[in-house]
């Protein structure tokens, strides 16, 4: 369903991703682990072109997407920028720092995409948004602004916002890293619910126990490259030196 083909990206001199390849099948849950600075988040952000890759392609639902920017053809740039949202609308993403919209109520946060991207009428959008918020347990917070929510609740709003659009894939970018410890398990439970529902997901996480529990496959990244891909059992018993060192340092 989602193929990453020889994706590379650098920030100036720093090569963050070096020729990365990965296939994610429909219904699969892939967890990406690795030390900080290994390019996990950047890889995730390349998948929906929030951080466009320098080279390589993303094939999503058999359609190929590449970065495009012409120096001279302004119209072509505009056309490309108009097309990208079509890809992004099918890929839900949840961020480390929630990024809920502070000037909108919980309900408005979730219904914005339904109205403006899916072009659903306001009343109907509110119904869908309400349903989506009910599923993450926020039915009593519909008219509340984000500054009155806890971190865990904000992250639930962000999850509901992504899910309301009925995406084909969900990307999670260290979604529990900014949460107070007691709020982490609640968010992980939300992801487990999606696992049960068969959602295709790519999860960048530092929660190793969780990753080994839910993942069908685990991707270990280091220094901008995928070092090893395998089932949780395979990765746990890995003989690859860097993966082994990383896991033993974390699982101790």
């Amino acid at each position, binding site marked *: 369903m989602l193929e990453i083909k020889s994706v590379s990206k650098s920030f100036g001199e720093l090569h963050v991703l070096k020729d990365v390849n990965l296939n994610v099948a429909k219904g699969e849950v892939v967890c990406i682990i690795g030390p900080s600075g290994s390019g996990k988040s950047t890889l995730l952000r390349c998948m929906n072109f929030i951080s466009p890759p320098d080279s390589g392609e993303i094939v999503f639902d058999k359609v190929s997407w590449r970065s495009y920017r012409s120096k001279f053809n302004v119209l072509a740039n505009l056309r490309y920028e108009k097309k990208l949202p079509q890809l992004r609308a099918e890929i839900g993403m949840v961020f480390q720092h929630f990024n809920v919209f502070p000037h909108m*109520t919980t309900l408005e946060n979730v219904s914005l995409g339904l109205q*403006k991207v899916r072009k659903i009428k306001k009343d109907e959008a509110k119904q869908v948004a309400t349903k989506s918020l009910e599923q993450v347990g926020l039915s009593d917070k519909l008219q509340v602004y984000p500054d009155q929510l806890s971190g865990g609740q904000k992250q639930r709003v962000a999850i509901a*916002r992504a899910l309301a659009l009925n995406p084909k894939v969900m990307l999670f970018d260290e979604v529990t890293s900014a949460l107070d410890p007691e709020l982490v398990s609640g968010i992980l439970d939300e992801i487990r619910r999606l696992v049960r529902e068969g959602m295709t997901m790519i999860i960048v996480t530092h929660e190793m126990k969780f990753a080994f529990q839910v993942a069908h496959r685990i991707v270990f990244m280091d220094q901008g490259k995928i070092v090893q891909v395998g089932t949780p059992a395979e990765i746990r018993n890995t003989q690859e030196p860097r993966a082994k060192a990383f896991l033993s340092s974390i699982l101790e």
Partner: protein
Amino acid sequence: MDNSVPLFDFAAVWSSRALLLEGFGIAMFCATAAIILAMIIGLFIALMRLSNSRILRAFAFVYTQLFRGVPLYVLVIWVYFGLAIVANINLPKIPAGIITLALLNSGYLSETFRSGILAVSVGQSEAGAAIGLTKRQIKRFIVLPQAFRIVLAPSGNQFVDAIKDTAILSIIGVPELMRMAQQQADLFYRPFEFYTTAGILYFIAVMGVTKLFTFIEKRMSRIGFTNSSQKLTNVGEYI
């Protein structure tokens, strides 16, 4: 000693009150119209400064530098006399005054708006992009509403400046408060009284505007958006 002429005499001011109030009304009208125009122009200039196009960026940069860099005194003469000479555009006095103030203030406001837009965190735009909004929708529904709250206080400040700047329009003969005060002062030989009265009227207007913006800000913070990182400064602290 001749005491027949008192030191201060506001009787003349009182007798000219209708003219002074008319001038006050014109000054407020000019300032308000100019600041509204300036906000619209300033927003477009700010968006140009932040666009991908090098040409638009360059234009916006020159625009901002030009109108911030030229003294209002010179600018008003350019608009009123210069346009007439160069392009044969003969503007009536009040529109010329409004346009002048709008140009000057749009230069300042464009910079205020630009920094306000940049102050909205990148994560907000990314979240908008992630749900499939177009660039334009992200600006309209996510970035600008948040930037608006950030620039509200400095914009109020700019409005206050515009009110006081209307005094300069007297040099092209706009019948605003300063011009009226000048004429009446010359008529009655009471410059101190008339200019002091004008000063008090400007002061009252500024207080009113300050109160108005504080009120709007309070309303704004009531509808969410009170997180500390973007807490608004009271407009009163700027003046």
